[in-house]
């Protein structure tokens, strides 16, 4: 990320924990020893399914939730004990709602009060921000008279309009109609980048995380699983959870064993064929991994499964054309393998289908712990 090479760290989270303990209820350790550093101007997604700890983390940074232990430093100041209004953060949260007695315009303008802008400047900023999120048509309405999606965007505008060290956004585009979503993502990303705004947003939708974020923090069970760019999450997932969670449709996984054979590698799929990979196709990382272990879990993304040619054979179970992609499922090695391609493929259910995948697209994981052993596209 060239844009951040010289950027200073703006948010430093160190060994953050959140433990919920209520009488008569089991203790929940919602966030476990979370440490992360975010640079000025970065857009960060906290991604995970419900209960993974992402929202607790965001609420602790915002000050809406107390910290059980650990520290949060923003722009050089420790903030974990400060009230929300003293932290220098702007936020758009579900339930952190608009003021019902104020119009949408006044709700957004209210966030600018502290900045003491000239009235004409303030009014211009409000309109620009409202236009950005497509609510300029409802500026003079009251929150109760606009749709849920419009309320969400008004709340987003209220956060984005002001100056802050950090912007915290909770599922910022959850309720948007699909036609608007792609355009709005582009507009918001451009606004954040042009003004070097630092932002953290929570989402359960990896499409949204991929589209907006410079880096994505994948969380599960209160633990940060991996914190990397979407490209690195794809190429070098740190474990089987991240590998199968990131990417749609999910990665195909097979139990397999690997052995060196001559200069190359032989890959034997459980209940399936053995595949010989010539030496030149196998990355040094994979070769190094073979020395010590043989039984592994093999992962191949559906986008990396070649159909219509190759030495492997599957029996097609379904072939669906979605207008711009084919999704093909086939029985292979006693399981279902899914392939995605932008080509239209003529293959009827029941037909034999040639398949192949390149060694460069293989991901190898420890079958017991799920930890990544090697990836085809990483340097050794």
């Amino acid at each position, binding site marked *: 990320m060239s844009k951040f090479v010289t950027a200073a760290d703006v948010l430093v989270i160190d060994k953050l924990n959140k433990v919920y303990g209520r009488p008569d209820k089991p203790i929940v350790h919602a966030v476990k020893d979370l440490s992360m550093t975010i640079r000025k101007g970065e857009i960060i997604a906290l991604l995970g399914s419900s209960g993974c700890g992402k929202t607790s983390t965001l609420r602790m940074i915002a000050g809406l939730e107390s910290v059980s232990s650990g520290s949060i430093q923003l722009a050089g100041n420790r903030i974990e004990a400060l009230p929300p209004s003293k932290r220098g953060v702007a936020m758009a949260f579900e339930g952190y709602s608009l003021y019902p007695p104020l119009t949408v315009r006044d709700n957004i303008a209210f966030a600018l009060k502290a900045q003491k802008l000239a009235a004409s400047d303030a009014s211009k900023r409000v309109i620009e921000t409202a236009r950005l999120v497509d609510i300029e048509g409802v500026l003079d309405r009251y929150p109760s008279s606009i749709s849920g999606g419009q309320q969400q965007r008004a709340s987003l505008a209220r956060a984005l309009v002001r100056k802050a060290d950090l912007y915290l956004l909770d599922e910022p585009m959850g309720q948007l109609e699909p036609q608007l979503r*792609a355009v709005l993502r*582009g507009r918001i*990303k451009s606004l954040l980048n042009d003004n070097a705004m630092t932002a953290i947003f929570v989402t359960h939708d990896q*499409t949204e995380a*991929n589209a907006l974020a410079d880096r994505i923090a994948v969380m599960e069970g209160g633990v940060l699983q991996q914190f990397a760019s979407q490209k690195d999450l794809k190429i070098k997932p740190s474990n089987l959870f991240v590998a199968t969670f990131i990417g*749609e449709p999910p990665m195909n996984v097979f139990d397999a064993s690997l052995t060196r054979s001559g200069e190359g590698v032989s890959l034997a799929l459980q209940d399936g064929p053995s595949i010989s990979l010539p030496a030149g196709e196998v990355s040094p990382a994979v070769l190094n991994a073979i020395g010590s272990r043989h039984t592994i879990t093999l992962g191949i993304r559906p986008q990396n499964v070649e159909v219509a040619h190759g030495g492997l054979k599957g029996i097609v179970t379904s072939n669906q054309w979605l207008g711009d992609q084919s999704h093909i499922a086939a029985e292979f090695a006693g399981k*279902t393998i*899914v392939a995605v391609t932008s080509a239209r493929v003529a293959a009827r259910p029941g037909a034999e289908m040639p398949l192949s995948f390149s060694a460069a697209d293989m991901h190898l994981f420890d079958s017991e712990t799920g930890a990544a052993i090697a990836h085809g596209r990483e340097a050794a």
Partner: protein
Amino acid sequence: MALRLQALSKSYGGKTVIDALSLEATSGDIVTVFGPSGGGKTVLLRLIAGIEVPESGQVLIDGTDMTYATPDARGIGMAFQNYALFPHMSAYDNVASALTPRKLGESEIRSRVNHIVRLLKIDHVMGHKPRELSNGQKQRTALARALVGAPKILLLDDPLRNVDAKLRYEMRLELPVLLRKFGSTVLYVTQDYKEAMAIGNRIAVLIAGRIVQVATPSEIYDRPATVEVARLFGDPGINLFDVTPDTDGRVAIANAQLSIGAEFASAAGVPCVLGIRPDAITVSQTANGATFPVDVVAETPLNDRSVLLLRTADGKEVLAALPASAAGTTPIGAAHAAFASASALMFDRASGLSIARGARP
């Protein structure tokens, strides 16, 4: 014809919800009913099931007029997005509840239920109560109950809505294969265009109580009958430009005169909407006679493509979807965009109807 709907109309409190709707489905057809919410999808299923009665029109099942027949006389199975399982009964009893012991006898019921639940891979949870089942198992149990009576017509109302993304994807692959094994005529309501394309051999697009187009998934995507249908399919959605083609088949976009082909001369002088899907748009640093100037505003990567938000000098926003291999190769700032006119779709601006299209679709 297994199912024939003739000029069905239904209104509530003076508001027309189903408007002279006609649709035919043959035996073994899987028709997905897709459209914006509030378009009448669920009401349509209720009219076919006999839960609602139309003001006019007919519901014919195997040629017999069933418009006013009771639900259980129609030979219809139904499953809903909220499963509607009986909470106090085991999964087995829920499935068996669709069959009448008086008519069939216990052993016949047992054999039919076992057959269905094995096919749906839920035979191992038949002793469980609904609350002990995962969402996917509940959904399959509801489906088994709908299928066990071997209905001529199967109505499924957004059955995958409440299952998680991973299972929804698996079911999207499996369900059409499974449904074909039963030979029922299926009407399948969904709010997800990809599900509509994946599951149906035909799609009926329902907008404001009317079926705007019935066709195969490819036809609907490549040859949408109206601009509204074009907008409903594709992610990111289709780009639309207001244009008026001239007699040489040229249009003006962002002050550039672009020649899009003689096939569009038929629309000369007609105010039109030109539709270009994001994957047909390319961006480069060099201008030529086929490009129009744009600002690259932002790049937002998708799973296997990368989406560019472009803006023309007159403020029009355009989305381009590039292959993932091109991600990160387009600098933010001034550039030139072009589109493959072979994939252009032209709609009459007044009526919204398709009036011309490029050579490819």
